[in-house]
C-alpha cells in the first residue's frame, strides 16, 4: 500500500471534524429536550412522574405526527403551509362522519390523502412554489372543515378514544407512541432502499432523475406521506380532545415547521431526521405550555417564548456550523 501523501492526512482530519460537527448537530435536539426536562424537574419535581408525563405530553402525539408530515414535505425541498388546517379538517371529519358513517368517513380521509399526493404532482408538473399552493390549500381545508362542522362539537368515535386513552403500565402512553412513531418513520425513510431515493430527491434531484427514477413519483409519495401523517395527527388529536372545532389545528402549521427544524432538519438538501423531528415536537410540546406555566410566564408571552426558543436553537446551530468553517 502506498504511503499516504500529506494532503490525505489533512483530508482525514477534515472529515473527522465534519463528522464531529454532524454528531453535535444530531445531539442538539436531544440536548434541548434534556434541558427542558431538567428545567421542569427543577421547577416542579412532581411533574416528573407517570401521571405528570401523561398530562404534559398529552398533546405531544398529534404535534409529533404533524411534524412528521411536514418533514416528509421538507425532505423534497418543499414546504406545507396547510398542514395545520388540514389537521383541523381531519379532526372535523373524525368527530362527525367517522363516528356516524364510518365508511363515508374512511372514504373522505383516504380521498384527502389522495388530494395531497395530487398536490405533489401538480407542484412538480407545473413547477409551482409549494408555499403559495399550500397557502391556498390552507383556505380550502379550513373552509371544508367549517362546512363539515359549522359549530364546535361532534364526538370522537369510541374506539379512537379507547386507543388514545390507553394506560400502559410503567411508561406513559405518549412516550411509547412517540418511540413507535420515531422507529417506524426512521425505518421507512432512513433504512429502506426507496427511502434513500426519497431523500436523494431532496439532495440532488437532477442526479436522481439521471439515474432513471421518476421525480414525479417521489414528489407524490412525499406529499402522500404528509397526507397520511396529517390524517393520523387529526385523528389522535380528536381522540384526545374528544370533540372538534374547525380551528383546532391552526397552530400546527408553524409548530410542525418548528419541530422539523428543532429536530435538526434543513429546508433544503433532503437533510432530515425523523427521530430528531419527534424529539423536536416533544420539546416544543413541553416548552410550549407546561414549562412556561411552571416558570410563571404569563400566557401573553408564551407565543413569544416559542419564537425565542426557535431563534435560540437556530443560533446555536449556526455557531456550531461556524466552528466547523
Amino acid at each position, binding site marked *: 500500500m502506498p504511503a499516504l501523501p500529506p494532503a490525505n492526512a489533512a483530508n482525514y482530519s*477534515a472529515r473527522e471534524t465534519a463528522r464531529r460537527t454532524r454528531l453535535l448537530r444530531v445531539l442538539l435536539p436531544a440536548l434541548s429536550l434534556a434541558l427542558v426536562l431538567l428545567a421542569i424537574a427543577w421547577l416542579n419535581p412532581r411533574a416528573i412522574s407517570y401521571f405528570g408525563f401523561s398530562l404534559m405530553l398529552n398533546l405531544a402525539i398529534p404535534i409529533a405526527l404533524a411534524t412528521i408530515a411536514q418533514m416528509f414535505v421538507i425532505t423534497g425541498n418543499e414546504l406545507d403551509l396547510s398542514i395545520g388546517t388540514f389537521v383541523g379538517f381531519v379532526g372535523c371529519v373524525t368527530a362527525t362522519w367517522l363516528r356516524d358513517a364510518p365508511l363515508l368517513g374512511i372514504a373522505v380521509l383516504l380521498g384527502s390523502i389522495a388530494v395531497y399526493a395530487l398536490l405533489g404532482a401538480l407542484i412538480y408538473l407545473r413547477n409551482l412554489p409549494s408555499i403559495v399552493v399550500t397557502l391556498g390549500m390552507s383556505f380550502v381545508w379550513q373552509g371544508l372543515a367549517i362546512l363539515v362542522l359549522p359549530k364546535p362539537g361532534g364526538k370522537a368515535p369510541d374506539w379512537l378514544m379507547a386507543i388514545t386513552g390507553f394506560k400502559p403500565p410503567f411508561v406513559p402512553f405518549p412516550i411509547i407512541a412517540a418511540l413507535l412513531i420515531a422507529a417506524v418513520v426512521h425505518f421507512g425513510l432512513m433504512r429502506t*432502499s426507496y427511502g*434513500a*431515493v426519497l431523500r*436523494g430527491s431532496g439532495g*440532488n434531484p437532477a*442526479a436522481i432523475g*439521471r439515474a*432513471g427514477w421518476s421525480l414525479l413519483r417521489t414528489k407524490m409519495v412525499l406529499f402522500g406521506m404528509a397526507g397520511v401523517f396529517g390524517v393520523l395527527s387529526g385523528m389522535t388529536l380528536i381522540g384526545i380532545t374528544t370533540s372538534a372545532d374547525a380551528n383546532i389545528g391552526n397552530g400546527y402549521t408553524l409548530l410542525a415547521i418548528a419541530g422539523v427544524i428543532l429536530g435538526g432538519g434543513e429546508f433544503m438538501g433532503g437533510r432530515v431526521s425523523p427521530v430528531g423531528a419527534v424529539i423536536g415536537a416533544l420539546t416544543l410540546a413541553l416548552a410550549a405550555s407546561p414549562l412556561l406555566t411552571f416558570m410563571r410566564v404569563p400566557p401573553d408571552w408564551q407565543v413569544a417564548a416559542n419564537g425565542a426558543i426557535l431563534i435560540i436553537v437556530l443560533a446555536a446551530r449556526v455557531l456550531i456550523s461556524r466552528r466547523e468553517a
Partner: protein
Amino acid sequence: MVDARTILVKLEGVEKHFGAVRALDGVDLNIFAGECVGLVGHNGAGKSTLMNILTGTLATGAGTISISGSVEDRYSVSRALALGIRCVFQELSLCPNLSVAENTRINHPSLKGIGWQRKAAALIAQKLDEIFPGHSIDPSDIVGDLSIGRRQMVEVARAFTVTDAPLDLVILDEPTSSLDSHTAGQLLDFVRRFVGSGKSCILISHLLGEVLGNADRIVVMRDGKVVAADRAAVFDRDKLVTSMGGAAAREKVAAEAAKGTREIGPICVKARPARQRDDMQLVARSGEIIGLAGLAGNGQTDLLLAIFEAAGGSRSGIEVTAPLALVAGDRQSDGIFPQWSIARNIGIRSIERMVRGMLISSRREAELASRWQERIKIRTPDMNNNILSLSGGNQQKALFARALGSDARIILMDDPMRGVDIGTKLDVYDLIREEADSGRTFLWYTTETEELDNCDHVYVFHGGRIVANLSRDELTEEKVIQSSFDEAV
C-alpha cells in the same frame, strides 16, 4: 481492420439547438466494442451536449442513435441504462446528503429488500478497492463530508459497479480534474484493463497527453461538428491542437502580443492565496495582463473571488487599490440576468454612474449600450432585445461590455472564453490589448493554454497555491502542466 469489430454505438447526423445556439451540427460518431475513444475539443465544441444525448439526458433535435445495430426511436435515460451506457458527469451527480452506499443504491434499482445496505456497501467497496487500491473511503461516509477528490473517486467507482443491468460503455467526462496524479494514474490503468476486457470507454479530457497516452482512437470536435477521427497513433499534440482549431489564431495572437511595448504602471493588486504556505504572491501592475493557469479547480477562481471581495472591504493578504469588475465564465450561473434586455445586462455594473437626480437616465443607459455594441461587435438588431436572444459568444461579449464599460481599472476574468467561438475570441483579445494599453489591468484565469499567449506573465496554480510564476518567454503548455504537478517548484 478496425471496422471488422462490432459497432456498439452509431450516431448519425445528430443535431441539437438551444435557442439561437447551435450546440451540435450534424455529428456522426461510431464507438466500437473494446476500445477507448478519446474525445477532445475546446469548451463549447459540443462534447458535453453530445454525451448528454448519448446518455438520454437530452433529446436529439435530429439524427439517429443506434445501439448494437438497432435504431433507438424512443431513447431515454432509462433506455440508455438498460443498454449498458453509463456516464460520469463533469458536475458531480452524487446526493451529498446520502452515504456512499446509499448513493450506489440510487444507480441500482435491483439493490433492494432485506440487506440492501450491506450489498450496496460491499459492491462499492469492492469496486473502489479494484480501481483505487489504498483509498480510505468507507461506504458509510456521508458524501457531503468527503473532499472533492474523494467524491470524484466514488462517482467513478459507482459508474463501474454492476448488478443486473449490463455495462458496455462508460463515458468519463474530465474524470481526473479533481484527482491527484497518483489516483489519476490508478484510474487510467483501470480504464485500460476495462477496455481490455472487451468493454468500451469514452474519455473526455483537456489534458491532451492523457488522451494521447490512453485512447485507442481520438475524435476531435469543433463548433458542434466532428472534424477529425482516427487512430491515436496518427495524432501528436501539435496535430490535435491544429484540428481543435485556433492554431492560426494563436500565431496571430503571439505576433500581436510580442510587438506590444506597453507602459507598465504602479502595483494595483497584491494577493496571496489563503492556502499559500511560502511567501509567493500574485502581483499586478496597472497596464499588465496577468494569466492564472494550472488545471481547472486548483484555486484560480477562489483567488479571483477573494480579490473581488477584498475590494468591498479589507481581507488579509490581499491589497487592491482601484475599482474592479469581474467577467464571469459560467454565464448561466454567474453572469447574465435572463429576464433583462442586452442593454440592461450591460448597464447593471454602471447604474450608479447613470443616475441623474434620483433616477437612472434611460438615455445614458442606451448610450452605454450602443457604444459597446459597436466597440465589441454584439450582433443583434436591437439592444433592447432579451439577452437570451443572443448566441453564447455574443452573450459573453455583453458580459465583457458590462465590465469594460464600467469605471473599473482592474478586470478579473474567470475563464471567460468557455464555449465561445473563435471569431468572438479574436475580437475580444484585440479589445483586451487595447484596454491594457490604456492602463487597465487584467487578471485572466483560463483553462485554454494558448490564451496565455496574451499575457505578460502567468501564475501557475496547484492545490489552491501559486506554484510558479512564468514570464511570456518561458511559457509552454508542457511547462504549465509540469509546474502544476510539481509542487516542489
